[in-house]
């Protein structure tokens, strides 16, 4: 048994082991400590004694014993201080819980909901999900998010303290709560996906990219909640976006915009899967923001060449998205689509509400889109100013290089024209 094999087992079993402990003892921090002790025991015993036939049962049994020890010693300390103990007999943890009347997915789903609990900050939700549900080490999560391990350890520790302080429980949310709780999970998973997808290089953590991990977790969520249309929509969106990964960066590591991507590099299998999920879910009824974004990605996927894109269809989808989840980014993307389907003048007109808003002046994409539309409309001078402003405002190195190159080209053409 190698370290890698143990890690694979742990990444598969971690949510189930934690879930089994959490069903009996509500405190996440205690359960995680006990689970980590079981992992350490496995790392010590399995290489010499071999992996047990039922590794999950073994891990749950060992972790349960450690948890009992922990609770007993806490109680002994508490008894001296005359504090009320928890209601359960300590030995209740020892009973193997894996054969109970719950579906295997239930624990992992409840764990996901707990990790994305509304009392936690977004960075804590992200860190805790990757730690508890994906079974990644603190060091791996820190590497993925480009922060020191100590910083990530603090975020995780803060998350555990918050869960304890707010009394967040490992239990199914009420029917009323469920939609917002699942929406929070989707937002966390999509953020993890984007963190991985948006990065042009250096995105490897323990042989898995953040984008792949997010897809993996969303697939699981989709399997637990097959009737949840937005979960299906988010999965389709991730698949349709990830399909473009090989085409979005050139040999120099520079960003290739959608219109200029070599579409033969798009992953047909991921595109087909994303489209199939959408075709099943779209007719079912009220269409949410993830489904609409996935539908837009699907329209792009269906165009063999950039000039074949059905922009009129995309304009309609962005108008629907604007109804469901309005945001400056949606207004902006809708303006791009209008510019492509009707003409740059109409696109610039659609940008006007954003241009009128002083708070949007520092939003680099607004200037980038305006620059592009101005260039198409033939107003080179104004386009140059807008490209320069966008390049100055962006915090993305590849985008900055791209915008600076467009600007340099316009200036050169201007010089040639004299």
């Amino acid at each position: 048994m190698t370290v890698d094999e143990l890690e694979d087992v742990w990444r598969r079993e971690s949510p189930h082991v934690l879930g089994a402990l959490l069903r009996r003892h509500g405190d996440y921090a205690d359960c995680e400590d006990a689970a980590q002790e079981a992992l350490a025991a496995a790392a010590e015993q399995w290489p010499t004694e071999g992996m047990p036939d039922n590794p999950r049962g073994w891990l749950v049994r060992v972790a349960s014993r450690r948890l009992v020890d922990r609770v007993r010693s806490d109680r002994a300390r508490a008894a001296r201080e005359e504090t009320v103990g928890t209601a359960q007999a300590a030995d209740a943890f020892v009973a193997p819980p894996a054969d109970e009347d719950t579906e295997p997915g239930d624990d992992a789903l409840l764990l996901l909901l707990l990790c994305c609990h509304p009392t936690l900050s977004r960075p804590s939700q992200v860190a805790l999900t990757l730690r508890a549900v994906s079974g990644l080490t603190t060091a791996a999560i820190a590497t993925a998010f480009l922060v020191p391990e100590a910083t990530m350890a603090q975020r995780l520790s803060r998350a555990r303290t918050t869960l304890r302080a707010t009394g967040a429980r490992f239990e199914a949310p009420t029917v009323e709560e469920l939609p917002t709780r699942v929406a929070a999970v989707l937002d966390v998973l999509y953020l993890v996906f984007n963190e991985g997808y948006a990065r042009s290089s250096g995105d490897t953590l323990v042989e898995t990219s953040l984008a792949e991990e997010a897809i993996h977790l969303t697939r699981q969520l989709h399997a637990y909640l097959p009737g949840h249309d937005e979960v299906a929509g988010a999965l389709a969106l991730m698949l349709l976006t990830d399909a473009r990964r090989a085409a979005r960066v050139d040999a120099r590591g520079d960003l290739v915009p959608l219109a200029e991507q070599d579409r033969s590099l798009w992953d047909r299998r991921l595109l087909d899967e994303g489209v199939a999920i959408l075709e099943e879910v779209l007719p079912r009824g009220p269409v949410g923001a993830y489904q609409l974004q996935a539908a837009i990605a699907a329209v792009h996927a269906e165009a063999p060449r950039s000039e074949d894109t059905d922009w009129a269809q995309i304009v309609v989808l962005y108008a629907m998205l604007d109804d469901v989840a309005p945001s400056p980014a949606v207004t902006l993307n809708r303006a791009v689509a209008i510019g492509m389907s009707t003409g740059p003048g109409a696109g610039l007109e659609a940008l006007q509400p954003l241009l009128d808003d002083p708070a949007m002046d520092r939003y680099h994409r607004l200037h980038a889109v305006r620059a592009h539309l101005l260039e198409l409309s033939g107003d080179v001078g104004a386009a140059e100013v807008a490209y320069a402003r966008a390049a100055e405002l962006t915090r993305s190195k590849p985008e900055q290089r791209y915008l600076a190159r467009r600007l340099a080209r316009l200036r050169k053409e201007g010089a040639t024209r004299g």
Partner: protein
Amino acid sequence: MKYVILIHSNPQPWGHPTSDFLAEHQALSQEQRDAENAAFEALLTELSQNGELVGGEPLAAPSTAKLYRWDAGRPVVTDGPYSEAKEHFAGFFLVDVETQERAEAIAARLSGPGETVELRMSMSDGGDDQ
């Protein structure tokens, strides 16, 4: 999102925390100085405990700097300071926060009498292909 918060200051003599060596800070009442110092410590503890503080360093006196300038195909070294400006680069904090607003709030809390705090976004490798 990562931000660097640069502290520009001119403690006399050079020393850290810079506020201890700034005339503007010394002009405050002892109570005000204690309150400022306590607020600074509280902020650092908060940033460290919630996982927003990524790093930071106080810097040695600008007079100890070595400056390397390229001349005729090779580096020529001179002694600092880098500029004759009123304030010098005295130290920095690197934070990783959720929003620009949060970064601005932190930078504002790091400012004090007699120095300038500069908030700069750091660039990322990520990018959008749309």
